[in-house]
């Protein structure tokens, strides 16, 4: 596959951006910030109506048989509008876990529902600071889960979660339906509430163990999710870059547009550099999804996208002066989202370690 998007791919990107821009409402997103447990249902409906939930799943399970490149482009558009739900990425990750590590019956039961957007998935691997714990506190024995997964993004509204647990022979991925007795979801108040983050507690809850080494499998899923998220981060960063550029052209001070001051102008140029590096890394990783070195490409995408979104949203706010720090302006939606995406699927330290381990092993 090529690093140049073909016509069909470009069309997907343009169409996704058009649909989302039409529906964008900063007001709705800001209302969600103050409504713990709520998410943008309109957005999620759009995802299934547009077939975005089906894009990267195989046709035999109701998907469209496309891949990470196409899903990435859609995620980029979603990032541009700081979309009000985490499920496009988290459901895809859950579906990939099933596709790769579950039995046929489970696939047949769940994948068409993910493709159609009827099911929402969540990923719960971390134990507090530890993104991929070697000995997860959550226990799976005799097909029953006991314990807690903290701060699971989407956990408050997902139908199904893929969790990393300690099994009888070490870490294992398990599939658990969340709407059942003895599952307690405690919504967490976060600075980005449309992520419907929740602590998930299991008290002898039935779960299906997935195949393979749990840590390896979790890492694979995280890498896939990292690439989708990196695109989302690039979309958000690009949005903030454009906002900063536009404002620098119109806002005047000392008799000229502020964009004529080099400290402003060069800051925006540096932000452009960050966005382009992140975009290239994200695209490169998506194109190499089946490459033996996908892991390091995904990590590079993740690192540069995180740096880009954090930095550009911070800088864009600065360029806006006082107006940028108001509730009214939408800048804080992106600042919040930038930080959220930076940590939800593993912070910089986690991905730096993942990358260096891969590089040092190969060298």
């Amino acid at each position, binding site marked *: 596959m090529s690093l140049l998007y073909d016509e069909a791919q470009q069309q997907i990107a343009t169409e996704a951006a058009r649909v989302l821009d039409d529906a964008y409402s900063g007001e709705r997103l800001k209302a969600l910030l103050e409504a713990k447990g709520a998410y943008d249902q309109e957005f999620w409906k759009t995802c299934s109506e547009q077939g975005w939930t089906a894009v990267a799943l195989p046709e035999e399970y109701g998907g469209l048989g496309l891949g990470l490149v196409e899903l990435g482009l859609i995620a980029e558009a979603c990032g541009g509008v700081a979309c009000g739900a985490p499920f496009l990425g988290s459901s895809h990750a859950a579906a990939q876990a099933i596709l790769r590590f579950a039995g046929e019956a489970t696939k047949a039961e769940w994948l068409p529902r993910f493709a159609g957007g009827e099911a929402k998935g969540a990923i719960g691997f971390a134990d507090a600071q530890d993104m991929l714990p070697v000995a997860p506190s959550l226990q799976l024995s005799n097909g029953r889960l006991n314990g807690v997964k903290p701060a699971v993004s989407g956990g408050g509204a997902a139908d199904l979660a893929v969790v990393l647990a300690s099994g009888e022979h070490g870490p294992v991925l398990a599939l658990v339906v969340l709407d059942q007795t003895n599952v307690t979801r405690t919504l967490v108040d976060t600075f980005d509430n449309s992520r419907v983050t929740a602590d998930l507690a299991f008290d002898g809850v039935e779960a299906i163990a997935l195949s393979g080494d749990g840590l390896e499998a979790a890492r694979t899923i995280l890498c896939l999710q990292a690439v989708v998220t990196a695109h989302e981060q690039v979309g958000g960063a690009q949005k903030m870059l454009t906002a900063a550029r536009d404002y620098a052209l119109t806002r005047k001070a000392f008799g000229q547009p502020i964009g004529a001051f080099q400290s402003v102008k060069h800051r925006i140029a540096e932000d452009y550099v960050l966005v382009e590096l992140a975009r290239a890394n994200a*695209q490169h990783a998506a194109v190499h999804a089946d490459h033996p070195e996908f892991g390091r490409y995904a990590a590079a995408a993740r690192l540069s996208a995180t740096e880009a979104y954090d930095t550009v949203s911070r800088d864009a706010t600065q360029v806006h002066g006082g107006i940028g720090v108001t509730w009214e302006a939408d800048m804080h939606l992106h600042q919040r989202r930038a930080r959220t995406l930076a940590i939800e699927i593993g912070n910089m330290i986690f991905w730096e370690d993942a990358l260096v381990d891969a*590089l040092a092993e190969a060298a």
Partner: protein
Amino acid sequence: MVDIDAYRERARAWLDSQAAAFGHAARRGLSVAEDLALGRRWQAAKHDAGYAGISWKKEHGGQGLGPLQKLAFEQEEMKHGFPNTYFAVSLGMPVPIMLRYLPDGWKQERARAALRGDEIWCQLFSEPAAGSDLAGLRTRATRDEATGDWIINGQKLWTTWAQHADYGVIVARTDPTVPKHKGLTYFWVDMKAPGVTVRPVKLAEGSSHVNEVFFDDVRISDAQRLGPVGGGFGVAMETLVIERYSATDPAGFGPPLALLIEQAKTDQVRGRPAIEDGRVRERVARTYAIQNGLAAIHKKSLLALEAGLQPGPEGALHKLVSVRTRQKLSEFAIDLKGVSGLRWDGDGERKDDWVASWISAPTGRIAGGADEMLLNTIAEKILGLPQDHRPDKGVPFNAIAQ
């Protein structure tokens, strides 16, 4: 569709076969004169093997191939440390631009001599008071009305390899009464002509590949003019974009990251392998992400080229990011060595020696467009942000406060 991979394979095999005679090891301990002589032989060998002037037209003595083959060759050539530096400016800009402007005959002779490394051309643009602001240059060319000749007086600075050059292209002021961009004219000059004095300038890194060049009543004929009188700035800009398709290196022409990783496995921090130290890991990871991004951007622009599209403005981004990243990584690599990092290897090459890379990195951030100018390019050309305030805009050159 051209088969670039096959071309690259052939080039690689040939380059490998030449490495022992001309590569890094063969150059160790050579004096500058010996290295230049080896370089000339290397250039001739490339010419004989069909690897000189790869993307030049056949009628100019080139191979008549495209930028993709040129790039593929350059990327492979870079790996061996061949003595090609003496010809980079010459074949990159001055010779191609004179080929565009001069009549047939003489120019083909010069081109062939340059392609074989027998002759070298230099580029006389910058001056003590005109670098980034090239149009502010002061070297004068005045018309001798009797003969139509031009008389050149003034000083150029930073002229790469002028001390070995046979010819040069020069921009001079022919009319100081009009705004600065409009009063310039472009010529070629014979570097051996009476009145031309070349003095090498020793750089911080210890070598002297740039020069100051003085012109004292140097007489040239009007036939040596390239482009119209007063059109020199345009020809200069045209010259600077000829090298649009040149090989890039995500490592900024410094050592590859893999070298640092190798060293960090044996070097120690607090009694443990350095590669286990968080600061080292952060640096390695962040640098990898930057270089991988640059490589992907480069690959994308090659594909665009292959598909017949114009390359975008990614060159400015690439130079800006790759060289300063190399500079910081080199500092870090020296740091990691502790006091043994102080050692200096006079024969060290910037592609595989951290000190050589570090000490020469600042030139990379100035020559060919300083970082700040590249940021201006990105901001203005790509993002559409306003130009800086320019008090000299539209003012006749002789009325600008000097």
